């Protein structure tokens, strides 16, 4: 492989440069010829049509009148757009979406805040506090990452039931207030913190809590953002647990379970209403995918590929 690179790298002056090679080297790297470019575009456009169409259907369909979608040919782009479905979703009584939205926000925000607090505290002591069993505790946290949630969902459900909390909103978040991955992510961030700064702060008589909140946390803001985004999405997109908890009680629905309930409700004739519902679940996640890819990639991969 190295031979191949040597031969064709434009920036190797020692290589005898033929005419063709000179011409080639003038082109900036990675700029394909016209035929190659056309082929690329054809492939990308085809893929975009297949992958994007369901997204268009979700968003555009949510603004179309009920019944338009079953017409042939599909009238996605010539309808009378309105907020009618959103108004209907607002007033929907069989599967009320407003409490579900409140529950989803509650779940996302509480889990996010809890992860931030529990992860930062634990990671701080793992990195900055001299104490016995530090390694053991760290590996205990790591071990919890490896446990697939579905393997322990049965005992957890029985536990919540035995506490009599099935109708309590907190039962939606209680099992998820701490997370091993969060501890790992913050530990990795704290370890980048220069040791001299820490010594100086401690010499100045700076207490641990003040050192954490005043000096360490502000300096790891990108990691905090990544963890916050990741945790919020964990909560917002969660399906299995709310499904079990809300099975006996409609008011415990999150948007994710409500959307499914909406779909199974009304013999599948309320497609536009369902699409409006799905669009609501997409608002924070689409915004993050479009504008916050940086944090996403960092959050997901910091622990793994870094």
């Amino acid at each position, binding site marked *: 492989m190295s031979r191949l690179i040597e031969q064709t790298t434009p920036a190797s002056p020692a290589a005898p440069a033929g005419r063709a090679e000179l011409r080639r080297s003038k082109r900036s790297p990675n*700029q394909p010829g016209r035929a190659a470019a056309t082929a690329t575009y054809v492939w990308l456009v085809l893929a975009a049509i297949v992958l994007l169409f369901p997204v268009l259907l979700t968003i555009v369909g949510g603004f179309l009148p009920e019944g338009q979608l079953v017409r042939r040919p599909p009238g996605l782009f010539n309808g009378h757009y309105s907020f009618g479905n959103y108004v209907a979703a607002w007033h929907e009584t069989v599967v009320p979406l407003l409490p579900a939205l409140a529950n989803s926000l509650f779940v996302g925000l509480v889990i996010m805040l809890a992860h931030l607090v529990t992860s930062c505290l634990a990671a701080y002591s793992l990195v900055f506090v001299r104490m016995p069993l530090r390694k053991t505790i760290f590996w205990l946290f790591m071990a919890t990452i490896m446990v*697939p949630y579905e393997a322990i969902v049965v*005992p957890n459900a029985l536990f919540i039931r035995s506490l009599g909390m099935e109708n309590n909103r907190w039962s939606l978040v209680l099992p998820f207030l701490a997370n091993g991955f969060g501890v790992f992510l913050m530990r990795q961030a704290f370890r980048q913190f220069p040791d001299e700064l820490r010594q100086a702060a401690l010499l100045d008589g700076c207490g641990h809590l003040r050192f954490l909140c005043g000096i360490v946390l502000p300096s790891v803001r990108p990691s905090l953002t990544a963890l916050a985004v990741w945790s919020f999405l964990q909560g917002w997109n969660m399906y299995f647990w709310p499904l079990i908890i809300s099975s006996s009680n409609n008011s415990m629905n999150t948007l994710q379970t409500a959307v*499914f309930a909406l779909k199974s409700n009304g013999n599948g004739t309320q497609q536009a209403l369902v699409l409006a519902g799905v669009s609501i679940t997409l608002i924070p996640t689409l915004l993050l995918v479009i504008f916050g890819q940086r944090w996403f990639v960092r959050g997901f991969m910091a622990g793994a590929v870094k």
Partner: protein
Amino acid sequence: MRRPPVRETLLGFGFCVPALAGLGTFVIFPLFQAIFLATRGTDINGNPSRSVGLANFAALFTPEFGTTLLHTLLFTIFVVVVGVTLPLALALPLTQRLRGMRLFRTIFTLPFAYSASAASVIWLLMLDPSMSPVNWLLRLAGMTAPGWTTESPWALITVAWATTWVVAGFNLLVLSAGLAGVDEQVLEAARIDGATGLRGVSRVVLPMISPSVFFAVVTTTLTSLQALGQVQVMTDGGPNGSTTTLVFSIFHNAFENGNNDYGLASAQGLVLLIVGMALAAVQFGVIERRVHYR
């Protein structure tokens, strides 16, 4: 090393208490409880009852559970193979200096915004006989659409595709990040030398982004192993159990139709635990190596 002062130690433990309490109560303790529950039956009130010995584990060696594992395997293979090669086939052309590549990248990552239930509901509507644009296109081409979620081989493929659609968006991000770290001249060299197409990709580019590819493969495997929402929303395990995967089987035995078979569900959960831990161990091993190489 000097023994750390007692105050310091107490503070350290104190800081760990919230996280340890949460994980201890809802992850570590339930693990042992699951082992205990796996030896129990269920009474008429739907609560765990007396010991049934290893009967629940014996139920793991039946043809039914074998079929469940087979569905899980097929589902996972589909999602991993398509969910990694498709974004790879998109991420590679996107590295070229052409107009609109950023727009295409954003478009391809949009499905990642969908949760399991949102994606499942959308694909149910996409393939719903009353409004399916896909069926309409097929009919224009003179073909009859199969019962996407109601015919046996198709149902598993449909559910797997809905999962793949979301996963591909995330993997495109991962693979693009990996490709961004590859020297542009190397990519160009591979292309000029006639090493275009599959040969160039597999011989030159793939080895250079192997950590990203591996990360994508492992996370995709774990995701598809744990894919419950897609099955529950789209097919509810049917038709005729043909989409019953391991996690769906756990959910079905414990929580659906008043089955309340917590013992069997827990035993199946332990199988999932073993598979998941083995995969995670592989992943950790690779991270270690990667860090070492840097």
